[in-house]
C-alpha cells in the first residue's frame, strides 16, 4: 500500500500547531508565511515553496484568488 501511496503527490502534513478540526488558521497562516518568506528571501528562494504547497493543499481556491486580488489592491487585512 505504501508503494501505491508514494505515487500520490505531496500534501500538507499534520501540523501540531493546528491539532483541531478547525483548520482555518492552518490555511490562513501558510498563505501569509509564503508571501512573507518571498518578501524576505526573494522569489527564487526554494524553501518558500513549502508554504505555497501547504496553502495550495489547504485553502479553497476561492479564498486564494480573493486574497490575491486583495493583495494586488492593497486591501489584504494583514501585513505581509
Amino acid at each position, binding site marked *: 500500500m505504501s508503494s*501505491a501511496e508514494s*505515487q*500520490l503527490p505531496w500534501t500538507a*502534513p499534520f501540523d501540531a500547531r493546528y*491539532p483541531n478540526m*478547525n*483548520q482555518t488558521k492552518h*490555511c490562513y497562516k501558510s498563505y501569509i508565511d509564503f508571501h512573507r518568506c518571498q518578501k524576505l528571501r526573494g522569489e527564487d528562494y526554494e524553501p518558500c515553496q513549502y508554504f505555497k504547497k501547504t496553502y495550495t493543499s489547504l485553502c479553497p481556491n476561492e479564498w486564494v484568488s480573493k486574497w490575491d486580488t486583495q493583495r494586488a489592491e492593497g486591501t489584504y487585512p494583514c501585513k505581509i
Partner: protein
Amino acid sequence: MVPTWSSFGLQNSASPSMEQLTFFHDFTMVVITLITVTVGLNMFLICSCLLTNRLLLQEQVVEIVWTVIPVFILLSIALPSLKALYLLDDPFTPSLTIKAVGHQWYWSYEYSDFPGIEFDSYMLPESDSLSIARLLETDNSLIVPSFSQIRVLITGSDVIHSWAVPSLGVKADAVPGRLNQVMLYVNRSGVFYGQCSEICGANHSFMPIKLEAVPMAYFIKWALKSS
C-alpha cells in the same frame, strides 16, 4: 452503499470511524433494551397488581439502589462514547487532501495536490438513465483511493451546509469562512452516498454527496487523466 427501503439499522460501515460508531450504537441499544424491558415489566406489574401496602411511606434502601445503579450504567455508556468521539477526531498524517465546498445547491470538490482538478457535483435528475438511487446520484462523483488516509476540508461559500457520508462515519458543517477537517479512510472499494445535513435553502434535499472509492492504481490513472 445505497440506503435501501425499510432498513432500520445503520448502513454497513466502510471505515474504521464507522466501525467505532456502529459498535457504540449496538452496545447502547443493548443497554436501552435492558432498561426498557425492566422498567416496562415493573410498570406492567404495578398496574396489574391489585394489592396495596397502606403502611409503606419510605424505603431508603431501594432509593439508594435505583440511584446508584443508573450512575454506573450511564458511566458505562459515557466512557465508550468518549472513546469513539476521540477516535473520530484523531488526526493522522494524510496522504491526500480534498476540499469540499458547499454551494446553494451543489457541492464542488478541489484536489489541489494535483494541478487543476476542480469540479462541481450536481444531482442527477430522476429521469437520467444513470440514476439508480433516487435523489442520490450526481453528475460528477468524488473519487477517492481506498485504503488511504485522506483529509477532507469542508467549507461553505454562501450559507451553512453540512457534508456527510453515513457509511464512512463522517459529518461536518460547511461554514463559510471556516475550514473543517475530517479524516477519511475507506476500507473497501465501492460507491457511498450522503446528503447535505444542514438545512440550507430550497434545494437542500437535492445536493447529494456521491463518493466512489477505487483502488489506488485506478485513482492515480483518473487523477493524471483529469489534471
